[in-house]
């Protein structure tokens, strides 16, 4: 089997699956490999860690001979990065357990040891019944923004993912690590109007965001009881859902807005970052005093000094004084693309909400001095 494909395309595919092949510690070394599957019609690259699986098409390719080839994904990715030229040639060795990877001109040539393709676990194809049709890029963007708040702490496993709820004509996503909570929703065409929910694990979300972010077509999305399946132009994906119950978060979301503020996002990011330079390493805290037409951003480091930065804002409602961890605050502002950012406050001990376009909300719990 000999494959000749576009370097950039291969690189992109390998990057997309890196979250799967580079996952947690495993005793099954085959899972560190990606599997090339060449048939008469197409060339696929597959990866699985038994929880999350992906199967992606490589479009611009020429294949000589059918067969399968398992190669270590991370190593292949770094080789592909180094090889010059636009195209890459991968040729399986005779025993089928390795390959020669070389540049089109033949100046660069690597011999890469792989594993027997027979050991590669089966990756099931898409079988989602009653799948929803969702706009691909919009869905990926929504996932990306919401996933920012998902916990990375494996001890709270039920928070280590994005909670998806489908209810009537609405798809809702929520994530929280306990200190911040993101939520967004989109209207969907849900003819079966089945209500389901599930937590998509972080690792799957990473892959989904990567593979779905390009392309205008739609994605078929099936949220089943224990897994999520997707089919899209150029591939398929599936992932086991996180077992566990997502906490009852709705009551934590405040409702009575006390003040609403609009500010220049870039200015605000710069100001908060500057203020964070003068906070204690161990206890970062920045005070925001929204008063009249400006916000005074203050910080104080016990061994460092103090800062005071003023930024113009437009405010409706009461004056607010509230403390946030500056890095969470900046993270939240960065998930927004608009020039202006709108914020809602509900009191100094209630979460603050940073609003994106449409329905995206990033709630941030304040710090309080006890």
């Amino acid at each position, binding site marked *: 089997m000999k494959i000749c494909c576009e370097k950039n395309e291969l690189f992109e595919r390998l990057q997309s699956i890196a979250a799967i092949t580079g996952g947690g510690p495993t005793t099954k070394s085959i899972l560190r490999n990606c599997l090339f599957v060449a048939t008469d019609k197409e060339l696929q690259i597959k990866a699985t860690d038994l929880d999350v699986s992906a199967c992606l098409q490589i479009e611009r390719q020429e294949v000589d001979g059918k067969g399968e080839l398992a190669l270590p994904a991370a190593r292949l990715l770094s080789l592909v990065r180094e090889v010059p030229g636009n195209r890459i040639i991968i040729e399986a060795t005779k025993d089928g357990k390795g390959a020669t990877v070389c540049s089109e001109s033949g100046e660069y040539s690597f011999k890469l040891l792989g594993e027997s393709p027979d050991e590669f676990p089966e990756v099931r194809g898409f079988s989602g019944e009653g799948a929803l049709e969702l706009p691909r890029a919009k869905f990926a963007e929504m996932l990306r923004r919401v996933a920012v708040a998902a916990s990375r702490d494996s001890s709270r496993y039920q928070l280590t993912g994005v909670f998806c709820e489908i209810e009537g004509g609405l798809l809702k996503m929520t994530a*929280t690590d*306990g*200190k911040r909570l993101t939520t967004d929703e989109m209207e969907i065409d849900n003819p079966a109007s089945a209500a389901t929910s599930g937590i998509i694990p972080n690792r799957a979300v990473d892959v989904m965001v990567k593979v779905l972010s390009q392309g205008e077509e739609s994605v078929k999305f099936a949220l089943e009881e224990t897994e999520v399946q997707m089919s899209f132009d150029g591939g398929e994906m599936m992932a086991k859902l996180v077992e566990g119950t997502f906490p009852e978060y709705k009551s934590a979301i405040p409702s009575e807005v006390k003040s609403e503020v609009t500010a220049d996002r870039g200015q605000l990011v710069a100001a908060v970052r500057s203020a964070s330079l003068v906070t204690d390493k161990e206890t970062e805290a920045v005070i925001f005093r929204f008063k009249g037409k400006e916000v005074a951003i203050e910080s104080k480091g016990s061994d460092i000094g103090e800062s005071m930065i003023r930024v113009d804002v437009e405010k409706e409602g009461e004056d607010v004084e509230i403390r946030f*961890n500056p890095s969470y605050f900046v993270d939240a502002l960065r998930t927004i693309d608009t020039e202006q950012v709108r914020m809602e406050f509900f009191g100094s001990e209630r979460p603050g909400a940073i609003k994106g376009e449409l329905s995206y909300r990033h709630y941030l*719990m304040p*710090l309080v*001095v*006890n």
Partner: protein
Amino acid sequence: MSIIQKLPSDIVNRIAAGEVIERPASVIKELVENSIDAGATEILIDLEDGGCKRLTVRDNGCGMDPSDLQMAFESHSTSKLDTAGFREGMFGVGTLGFRGEALPSIGSVAEVEAVSRTPKGEHAYRYRLDGQPPEPAAGEPGTVLEVRNLFSRLPARRKFLRRPATELSHIIQQVTRIALAYPGVSFLVTNMGKRSLDLAACDTLRERLGQILGADKLENLIEVAQPGDENSPHLHGFISAPALRRGDTRMQNFFVNGRWVRDRLFTAALRAAYKGYLIPGKHPLAYLFFEFPAEAVDVNVHPTKSEVRFRNPGLMYPLVYNVVSRALEPEDRSQEAADDSGSDAKAGIEQAALDFFANPPPSARGASTGGSGGSIAGAGWSAAGGTREAVEERRELPEVESPGRVFQLLNSFILVEEEDGILLIDQHALHEKILFEGIYRQLLEGDVVQQKLMVPEILALSVEQAPLLEDGCRLLGACGYEAEPFGEAEVAIRAVPELFEGKRRKSRVAEICQEVFSWLEREGDRYLSDDETPELLEQRLRALASLMACKRAVKAGDRLSPEEIDSLLEHGDLAMDPRNCPHGRPTMVRLSRRELDSSFDRK
């Protein structure tokens, strides 16, 4: 004839001797104390067989005239109580001896001969306990007491004497104790013609300690002083830095009005004050002198006067604890070092230790300019031997081109290359200490910044822990958590101290809270009491801070990224006292170039 008879005086004396005279060292104690009370500035002790066969104490004190000499050996006679003093009772005696038991007691259990001459006397007088009056003899001003064949008339007691070498060591210990209290007096002990202890008169306790411990130990001693007032005694002396420690408490010496005493209270106070600086089983050295107004202390509760009773015992523990704790804090140490210009070496070491973290090696700051100054000499009290010498020697050694390379070893230690050696840091211990200081400071100051939680974390307690629900929530509250009972056996945590959170740090809320409950289960009785004294509160906060620091710190075996290592070293630089972890283990070990060279036989 009445059944009850008065004991003959020689029997009384022997009974008294049994209380006071246990071994040659007790004789020495009595005689040397007499010499000091006589104003001697020079005391010579000569022994045969560790004093079992013969011991002679010669002094240059005020001496005795013939009548005093004779009186001295009569029971309960003393020169140290005038009638007025006696009327006030035995409180108020400012001299070492006074019970008037010593000489008669010794005389009853050994052969004693005294030769004494007053400064004005034309010659000395000799007196033996044989009923004969003192006879003229040759002799310098002062007193010579010779005691032979101790316990020869009491075979039962003689059996208890140990080998001469053992008895000698007891004598040395005894003389040393007295010598510490009287630096102005010179002491010479010879046994079988060989010098066993030679202490020249000196001006300060510090010099005397140098004579006794060796000058190299001085830099590891911390001077303490606390002026007294009408209620509390004047306290002064030295304690050892944590690097200088022993496996027992024998080097802990307490003196009340110049008299060496034994008191568990002091030992306990020291132990409490060193908590966090020394691991259990290791003890500091201490030489603490308490000066009371004479009437505030009763020394007559024990025949050898090695125990005393204080009029106000409740004051003593906090006094020692507070003075010692304060002295162990590094700011105090640097201040003290600055004040004490007479001790350059000590100041140098301490400053070097503090400087290390004020000017960490270049890599710790991410800069690469190396090779300025010797500020990283001696990052700790330990390994401090002869710094000045080391500084001079270093100039001759080839300069390390760019010191400050940093490595992680065995996923547990950090190796820092220094200009004149290497520093090995225990990553867990140092991180733990840094966290401990931050946590403790915040808990103490009470302005804990809390991160509110969007959704509470629920912690389930075990059956055994359930009864501790309320107490545990209260303690968690003191640690900056917002925790409240949630049903019968669950805790809802609604806010966590920001100190433990930070964005990139792994949250271990449930784990830490669980740890607090386990700790409460184990040690709650010790730290919870209806009577919440400031000391108890402080100790509790320390214990909690230490517990949480331990949980949050990186562990041995954790692989650290270069950024994490840099951050650890940088934080170490901010820590007040990075040298010991909260459990008292050292956080770092320094190997100087000299030590490395000598390990390879390069010198």
